[in-house]
């Protein structure tokens, strides 16, 4: 991950200039901790921009096919499990809240709440992935996984397969980012349990927090675009 280096140093702008370079997280190439914090911040944002462009390619392709095959996509969308999708959306929003609380705990130097909120975020992320697993297996069960075994009733089989292809690639990419995020969070838990973070140094928590929020936001776009295209009969096929 490009933020591997970003993780390991930095600090907010406010503290005393003379003492900063002696901080254990200080890196030699910077003049002071303030500069180091600024660089980490900008680096993370630039990285997130690359992520936006990465998912942007997928969203672009999706948009084109959706405008070409609008009816087919609307028809296919009823097979997305709207209940599980909506539940997962709320799980992720909750995880964003716990992540924000973790960052706040780090900034205010509250060690135990920090660990607890990080663990809660990890747990919510894992819940999301487990539910995603059940959603995927349902798709496999109905032969909605694209490829030789794909089966779809009605005149839209080819176009439906494209939507399901986007569904699996986009949510799969998103899930992969979740897995990475959970890995990063466990790194934070390990560091936090050694009381590395306090009011003078919490950069990794904040950076990984940004990443986590980004991954959540991707899902906020994925959910309506994939699940809510057309009318769902009886409130969804589940």
């Amino acid at each position: 991950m490009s933020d591997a280096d970003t993780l390991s140093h930095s600090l907010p702008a406010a503290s005393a200039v003379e003492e900063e370079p002696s901080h254990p997280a200080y890196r030699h190439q910077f003049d002071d901790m303030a500069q180091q914090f600024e660089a980490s911040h900008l680096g993370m944002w630039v990285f997130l921009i690359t992520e936006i462009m990465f998912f942007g390619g997928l969203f672009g392709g999706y948009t084109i096919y959706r405008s070409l095959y609008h009816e087919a996509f609307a028809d296919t969308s009823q097979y997305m499990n709207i209940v599980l999708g909506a539940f997962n959306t709320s799980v992720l929003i909750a995880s964003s809240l716990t992540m924000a609380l973790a960052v706040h705990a780090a900034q205010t130097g509250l060690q135990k709440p920090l660990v607890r909120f990080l663990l809660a975020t990890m747990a919510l992320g894992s819940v999301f992935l487990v539910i995603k697993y059940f959603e995927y297996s349902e798709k496999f069960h109905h032969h909605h996984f694209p490829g030789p075994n794909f089966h779809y009733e009605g005149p839209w089989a080819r176009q439906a397969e494209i939507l399901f292809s986007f569904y699996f690639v986009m949510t799969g990419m998103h899930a992969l980012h979740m897995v990475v995020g959970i890995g990063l969070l466990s790194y934070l838990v390990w560091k936090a349990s050694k009381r590395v973070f306090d009011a003078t140094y919490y950069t990794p928590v904040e950076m990984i927090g940004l990443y986590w929020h980004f991954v959540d936001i991707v899902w906020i776009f994925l959910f309506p675009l994939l699940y809510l295209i057309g009318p769902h009969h009886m409130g969804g096929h589940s």
Partner: protein
Amino acid sequence: MSTVPVAPPPPPRTAAPVNYLSVSHSVRSWLLTADHKRIAILFLVSISFFFVLGGFAATLVRLELVTPRGDLLSDDGYNKAFTAHGIVMIFFFLIPSIPATLGNFLLPIMIGARDLAFPKVNLLSWYIFMIGGVIALSAMFLGGVDTGWTFYTPYSSTYSNQWVSLTVIGLFLAGFSSILTGLNFIVTVHTMRAPGMTWHRLPLFVWAAYATSLIQVLATPVVAITLLLVAVERTLRIGFFDPALGGDPVLFQHLFWFYSHPAVYIMILPGMGVINELVTCFSRKRIFGYEAIAAAHVALAVLGFFVWGHHMFVSGQSIYAGMVFSILTFAVAIPSAIKVFNWTATMFRGSISYDTPMLYTFGFIGLFTIGGLTGLPLASLGADVHFSDTYFVVAHFHYIMVGGMVLAYLGGLHFWWPKMTGRLYPEGWAKFAALVVFVGFNLTFFPQFLLGYLGMPRRYHAYPEEFQVLHVLSSAGASILAVGFIIPVVYFLWSLRSGPPAPANPWGAKGLEWEATASPPVTENFADTPVVTEPAYNYASEREPEIV
């Protein structure tokens, strides 16, 4: 790999100070280094290796084309050879060439920083690059790829039964390496400039590297996901781009060129950055129109994102889209011309010296102009129908990429070689090599303009006999060009051991890398953080007021 730059400490100038090369000699110290200068050397050695491989594939191509019949290679073998040439040269040589070597080495020094913002990420980008390179190369040696470097669907998805997926994974990784380099440069330029190094005092090489980084960061992720979709389509047999399955192959072209057109500017902007430095140094005159050139770099980076459709005039895209892309493509000529005119104006009434880097600069300006002007017929909707997929396009592209970027790379390498290694190269041999490169290059690629004009399509291993004279000329030129590339390798390696020690500023050049560091620099570049008090290129300021 680690043996190349480890020169013995130079004879006692100032009691042989410890520099970034002599600080440690172990292989481990190179493989685990976080010093931007050492990482630059790692990249230099790596991309030189890839350049040789790509050159070998080009040799096969040019040998095959000596005769009209396909006698040396089968059609399939020929396809693999030009694909290998394209992939290796573009993704593993041109894209990292100047940013990852000269850029890595110089960017922190030029802005007065001790290192890049994220040294470990910088090292990581080298490892990712090497893993990507090994994967792509292993695909080539396992059987090769015949799709061309563009991986157009459905060649790459439906019809190719070769190592496409493995190759695109290699390119995916190389792209990630390029993203990390760009990210590091952007953050470094924003946050780590020395006191007094304002944006308006930045060397124009830094402006060019910054503009390049913007493209790397914004465009590369798109090709990454596109190539990933091709790999997914091949492995799962699904139809993102396959019309039989409802997909659209032209969508691939849109996504691919959305990256790959800006990628062309990744491959030329850093070269322009180098030329900025050289032309002003060897004219002994402040560069003409600093602000205009800086703006033109950024303008090229931005415009590059809006012209991808000019690769697709004959793909069946809407004619109105074609017209818009055509107009925007003509707009690219404006920032390009600004630079050429400003370089020329810089030389006007300058005290020009004809050292090797300046010879490459002359070559760059001339060849880039030819390459740029031949882009205009290709940007015209009508003319492009005739030229599309002919040798005219091949020649145009190589005039920019080899005549432009490779000459700039060589010019920059000669210019900063004393700084990087602490040794001087033999000037006589270097001038001779520059001449050989120039002659060989033109003999190789000028006939290809004529071939294309006459209708010779690219990517064929056999051709009608009336084209043979021009093809033989081109192949002859290629062999001269090869000699021109080998000579510098020989004398550069020689200079590492036996070249005279370089003073800190052999060219009398301006810039922190010359005026504030030793040759070679120490590990953290500067003894004390420099303070910048004058504008860039403050050469002989009494000459300034003359306006043309």
